[in-house]
């Protein structure tokens, strides 16, 4: 049994133990209970840790977003509340809690109340299968990836509930647009993840990370360093930006377009829950992308393995979030028809081609030949699709159906 005296703790602080510190901590805490309660207590402890950690990360992410966007726009972000504005999330949280919760008279109260709850519950459930470190996954499921996508699909239901129950035409319109966008890009997300399943041969996220955590020399076997992996990674980034309604795909919630889309009738804490749900969805999708393409908790170079695995995982997730913020600060919003066209006419065919190229990679066997062939096919396809897409369509005179 792990005895927690200071001396033994200090002496046991080798790199391996630092890596497993949360597991050791959990085992030590759980050992205080009788054996019957131990598994349940272990699970509850892990759940509490996750449910406590991700809102804290959310607070940090919101602050980082505001300050990062500010710097990109030649201004300071918030810097009045606390040193460098570090307590701004606290101020935001207090504001959200004390605001009056206004529900429209005609709104469907039950569904209006349930929508943010469904979103938050589903999004937190999807965090259950992410391996956040070596031996640090809440539930090691055989089809963990499928569970993740099942939870992601349920987000659309929550958005519909929010939009419809508000009895507001802007909300409904925003919800319909959001669902259309999310369904289209969900397909792309799934197909770009399928290539990883094809190569690693398992739907379990733990096994996918284990397959990438090996090194040849000092270089890791991350899937992003292969041609099909790089293409899938780029597609995954695009699709995940669209899934979480981030710029440049944030038309459903763009303030200048449609008031606040399906958020319009939500105020106070329910809005804060939606906001939380969106950001935690960002974290979970970033976590999935890290697991599938960036090697999960493995270090980029083999000698950097001294740094704990959970630190690497969160570092990579934070890099994703920084990239999302960077993208938001750079790109203007896409119009609804533009983003649907982009999904169905460019990204989806490219994803299907990528699937084919991955199969080719698998069956060509080891060697440099498959690198060359796959890279050439993907690059050529990208250039050709790009040319086709950028060609100006002949736009004739507009015909209006109803406005005669």
């Amino acid at each position, binding site marked *: 049994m792990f005895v927690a005296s200071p001396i033994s703790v200090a002496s046991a602080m080798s790199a391996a133990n630092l890596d497993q510190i949360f597991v050791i901590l959990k085992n030590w805490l759980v050992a205080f209970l009788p054996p019957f309660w131990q598994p349940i207590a272990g699970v509850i402890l892990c759940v509490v840790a996750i449910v406590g950690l991700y809102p804290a990360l959310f607070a940090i992410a919101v602050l980082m977003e505001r300050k*990062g966007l500010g*710097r*990109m726009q030649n201004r300071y972000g918030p810097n009045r509340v606390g040193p460098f504005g570090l307590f701004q999330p606290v101020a935001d949280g207090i504001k959200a809690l004390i605001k009056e919760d206004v529900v429209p008279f005609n709104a469907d109260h039950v569904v209006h109340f349930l929508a943010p709850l469904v979103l938050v519950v589903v999004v937190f459930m999807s965090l259950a299968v992410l391996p956040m470190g070596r031996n640090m996954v809440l539930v090691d499921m055989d089809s963990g990836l499928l569970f993740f996508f099942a939870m992601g699909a349920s987000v659309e239901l929550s958005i519909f509930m929010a939009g419809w129950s508000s009895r507001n035409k802007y909300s409904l319109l925003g919800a319909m647009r959001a669902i259309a966008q999310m369904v289209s890009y969900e397909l792309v997300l799934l197909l770009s993840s399928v290539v990883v399943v094809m190569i690693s041969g398992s739907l379990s996220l733990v096994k996918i990370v284990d397959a990438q955590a090996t090194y040849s020399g000092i270089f890791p076997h991350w899937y992003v360093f292969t041609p099909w992996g790089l293409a899938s990674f780029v597609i995954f980034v695009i699709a995940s930006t669209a899934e979480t309604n981030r710029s440049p795909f944030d038309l459903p919630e763009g303030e200048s377009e449609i008031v606040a889309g399906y958020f319009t009738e939500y105020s106070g804490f329910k809005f804060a829950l939606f906001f939380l749900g969106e950001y935690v969805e960002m974290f979970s999708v970033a976590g999935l992308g890290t697991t599938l393409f960036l090697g999960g908790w493995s270090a980029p170079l083999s000698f950097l393995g001294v740094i704990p695995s959970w630190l690497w995982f969160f570092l990579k997730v934070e890099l994703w979030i920084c990239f999302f913020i960077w993208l938001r600060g*750079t790109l203007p919003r896409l119009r609804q028809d533009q983003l649907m066209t982009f999904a169905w006419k460019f990204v989806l065919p490219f994803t299907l081609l990528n699937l084919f190229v991955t199969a080719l990679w698998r069956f060509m066997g080891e060697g440099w030949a498959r690198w060359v062939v796959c890279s050439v096919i993907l690059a050529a396809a*990208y250039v050709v699709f790009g040319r086709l897409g*950028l060609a100006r369509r002949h736009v004739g005179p507009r015909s209006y159906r109803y406005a005669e």
Partner: protein
Amino acid sequence: MLGEGIIKGLMETARNFAGSYVSKERLTTVQYPEERVAPAENARVFPFLVYDGPEWLSGLRCVACQICEKECPPKCIYIDKSADKKPDAVGKPQNYPTRFDIDISVCMSCQICVEVCPFEAIKMDTKFELATDDRFGGLLLDREQLAKSNEYFHQIHPTEATEIDDRMAAERAAAEAKAKAAAEAAAAKAAAAKAAPPAGTPAAPAAAAPKDAAPKDTAPKDGGKD
């Protein structure tokens, strides 16, 4: 190629982000209200009345001609003309405003009052922190609140103030020279009248010449070219 624009955009934003920590050019924000950006020279917010000298009541340039009141588009100036006359900075007796109110909640900062004032009496101020919680009279500035010294005018609009001062000084000098010449002419005339028959014509054209030159200097006395 597809995606080139996005990459260029991302690079630009990254340059902004990194540059904001090192160069002032990439972070143009100032921490108001601890730091303030000095307003530009020709910034304008609401009007004020200029006075010369140490005392505002006697040094006000305004002679209550009421041209600005009539020209103001939203009619936010309220002037009451005095019944008596006081000597102004030059010494000439002029009317003065017993009430000069500007309602700055109405004023639209168009500067027309400045442009039409013939006496360089009303100019644009640059102070904008005028918010008040007195909702009934707080934004109606009266004569005393509007009167600010010529030194203050020099501070906020140095070029304009110097130019006006120079011009007014020149006019004043010309007026004084004219007065002196008139006095000399009168004295010469008196002397000529004393030695009238033998002096005759040579004194008269010599006295007439400076008398002709002086009015041309004092004639263009309009204000507001600036």
